[in-house]
């Protein structure tokens, strides 16, 4: 973006050109994602009767509440330039711990607390190792992924169903919105997570430091920012979000199973990237990741409406989209 070469004596022209190009470049990927979302949803509305209803929209959130939460956590990690491969396994472990504890007769609130603590603790451990030993996040979270998946099998190889009344009530309960559209409690929790994440990222020092670390870690350190806290913190947040996503997933499935959520970390990463975040860090928005999840969900819905197409088409389309978005980002980065 060396186009602004006005000498400092000409403040007015600099200001206007700076402001003019600032908005699009920063938000362009998110806007592009939103356009893609509107377009896919539009295609569905034109092709299928009943697609363009409030409930189909609501179902997008209901069916993907857990993924939204995962994508939120993943956004923090990716913003610092890291990656967290453990989220899918932590989801499975969370469903497993929840199911096993409830089966053993523990109260629901305590189960929730324990699951969230385990997820956050795993994140803390991974973040600490990444920071302390300077190991690539890829390897450390890969190890975390195997560990969490393995722990599932230690608890039980079989699927454990959840019969706890509190969980059942939460899972089946619904909230009616104006217009006869219903959503689940899971959606509310997911949206609360999104709001909290936006607040933390944009209105707290921690959040701004996340962006700073992603932009340039050495600069952030020289600026005297607490990079250590942030670098470990994002993995704690991601671990917490994985556990929360796991709880939502156990509500969605009403069971704990070792093979739940296999490969879900990749869905989360895909959503974040489609949502316009750069894997190199420093650029991206939580809202983008949410729209990214919605895009993935819409494609899935489209394919189920089509009926004749195999669900594997979802993967193919997502693959194509991912490539398109990475190409788009490269173009934007190159231009700037």
């Amino acid at each position, binding site marked *: *973006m*060396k186009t*602004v*070469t006005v*000498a*400092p004596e000409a*403040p007015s022209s*600099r*200001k206007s050109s*700076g*402001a003019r*190009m*600032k908005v699009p*470049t*920063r938000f362009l990927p998110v806007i592009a994602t939103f356009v893609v979302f509107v377009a896919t949803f539009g295609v569905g509305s034109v092709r299928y009767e009943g697609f363009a209803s409030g409930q189909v929209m609501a179902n997008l959130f209901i069916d993907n509440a857990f993924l939204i939460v995962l994508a939120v956590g993943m956004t923090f990690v990716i913003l610092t330039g890291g990656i967290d491969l453990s989220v899918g396994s932590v989801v499975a472990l969370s469903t497993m711990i929840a199911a096993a504890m409830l089966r053993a007769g523990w109260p629901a609130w305590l189960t929730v607390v324990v699951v969230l603590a385990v997820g956050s603790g795993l994140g803390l451990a991974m973040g600490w190792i990444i920071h302390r030993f300077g190991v690539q996040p890829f390897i450390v979270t890969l190890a975390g992924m195997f560990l969490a998946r393995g722990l599932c099998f230690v608890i039980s190889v079989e699927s454990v169903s959840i019969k706890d009344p509190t969980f059942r009530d939460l899972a089946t309960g619904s909230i009616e919105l104006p217009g006869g559209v219903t959503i689940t409690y899971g959606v509310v929790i997911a949206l609360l997570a999104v709001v909290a994440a936006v*607040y933390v990222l*944009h*209105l*707290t*020092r921690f959040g*701004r*430091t996340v*962006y*700073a670390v*992603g*932009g*340039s870690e*050495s*600069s*952030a350190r*020289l*600026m*005297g*920012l607490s990079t250590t806290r942030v670098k470990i913190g994002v993995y704690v947040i991601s671990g917490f979000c994985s556990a929360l996503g796991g709880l939502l997933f156990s509500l969605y499935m009403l069971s704990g199973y070792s093979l739940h959520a296999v490969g879900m970390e990749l869905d989360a990463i895909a959503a974040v990237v489609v949502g316009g975040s750069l894997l190199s860090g*420093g*650029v991206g928005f939580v809202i983008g990741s949410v729209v990214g999840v919605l895009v993935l969900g819409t494609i899935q819905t489209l394919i189920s409406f089509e009926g004749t197409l195999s669900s594997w088409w979802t993967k193919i389309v997502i693959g194509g989209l991912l490539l398109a978005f990475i190409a788009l980002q490269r173009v934007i980065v190159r231009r*700037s």
Partner: protein
Amino acid sequence: MTEPVVDMRGISVEFPGVKALQEVDFRLFPGEVHALMGENGAGKSTLIKALTGVHPLAAGGIHYAGGSVSFGGPAQAQAAGISTVYQEVNLCVNLTVAENILLGREPRKFGRIDGKAMRARAAELLERIGLHIDPGSVLESHPIAVQQLVAIARAVAVDARVLVLDEPTSSLDADEVAELFRIIRVLRDEGVAVLFVSHFLEQVYEISDRMTVLRNGRLVGEYTTSEFSRIELVSAMLGREMGVLEEIERRSGTPGEPWLKAEGLGRKGSVAPFDLEIRAGEVVGLAGLLGSGRTEVARLLFGADKADSGRVLVGGKVVHLRGPRSAIEAGIAFSSEDRKAEGVVADLSVRDNLILALQAARGWMRPVPRKLADELVAKYMEMLDIRPANPEAVVGTLSGGNQQKVLLARWLVTEPKLLILDEPTRGIDVGAKAQIQKLVADLAAEGMAVLFISAELEEVVRIADRVVVMRDRQKVAELDGGAVGVDDVMALIAGGGDHGLDKGAQKAVVS
């Protein structure tokens, strides 16, 4: 004069095997611009880092604002009012100008960042240094020069009493430098002590009130700029180590045909087109200050940088230097000034380092027989007097001088026709220096062409048959024969300033 705000006494800093600073005193007064001068490796950066707590002190103490201090790192120094702006802009280009200025100390309301107050405060700080840009714009959207000024705005946002500018002008053009200087003056008049590091003499004379000169990790002196001529400064920076070394008897052989000829070779933004001839059996010295283009000349001849004008002839035939590989094939060797990063492989043994070069020269199809390898290693270790005389010693554990010898040996193994030596004697002790100089003379006597780059004029003048002088990225002169004196070269390096050119210095052939 008032009390100094920073008073460093007897500062010594040591790295494994190197004494980076030895008993240096340094004083900085409020309301002055103080230039820290010295060639590469003189210890300027080390002194700054000793002040800001990056390097621990081996000896000495720092007084700051009346008390004895010892900072644990830049963050602590900054909190105490010592801000540093580095050569590369250390900001986050993905954030806004306001955020970059106030990151870590944003105004907050009820625990959340108050964006409006932040932009207002940033605008105020930008106003203070007279920079009119939108604090809400992304830093990336501004040119490097403006980013540098934003870094300064950040530095003064903490009510800095000391502002350290480490080569802030190296990537700026003339107008931008003027803007920077205007801001420096504003801050100086407010009572900020500015420590300014630059290798551009013009700028130093324009902006600084006093200067401290370092050489080889030692203090040369503290001077008032207006009373210190350029020629004195250059001589203080480059030093004169007269009489330490034995006279090298050479300049006897009559060099033959030019082995390498560069015609109008140049590269935009790096070095202006120049002509150069190097004959077999001749040592050509390349003199100039840091940043004058001397290393750039070497890199062009070695193909490490691509020339965008001119051509190179080897033995009368045009060669296309597409990269170091083609230069090596043509018989050119380049021993880089940064031997740690571009020269030796510090984790391998002396033997492996030598074999590596030989193997590269032979190609992977022809393994080096063990016997030949042992012979070569023994030969060069003896010839260069590498110590310890153990081929299995890991290079990283050797002293600087011996590492340099290993690097030389690496190139000699490949039997080059032209040897380019960039600062081969920097940072090594006097004994090793003399050995390397002797070796260069011997190699030339055996018919090798040598391009010898050094910041030490004594050395260049003593060893070279011809001296090429660089200034401001241009070849300004070529001095022939053994009659060249250090003073002549120094005058040419100091250039056309009004600060006391030696009479008679201009008699040199100015091309």
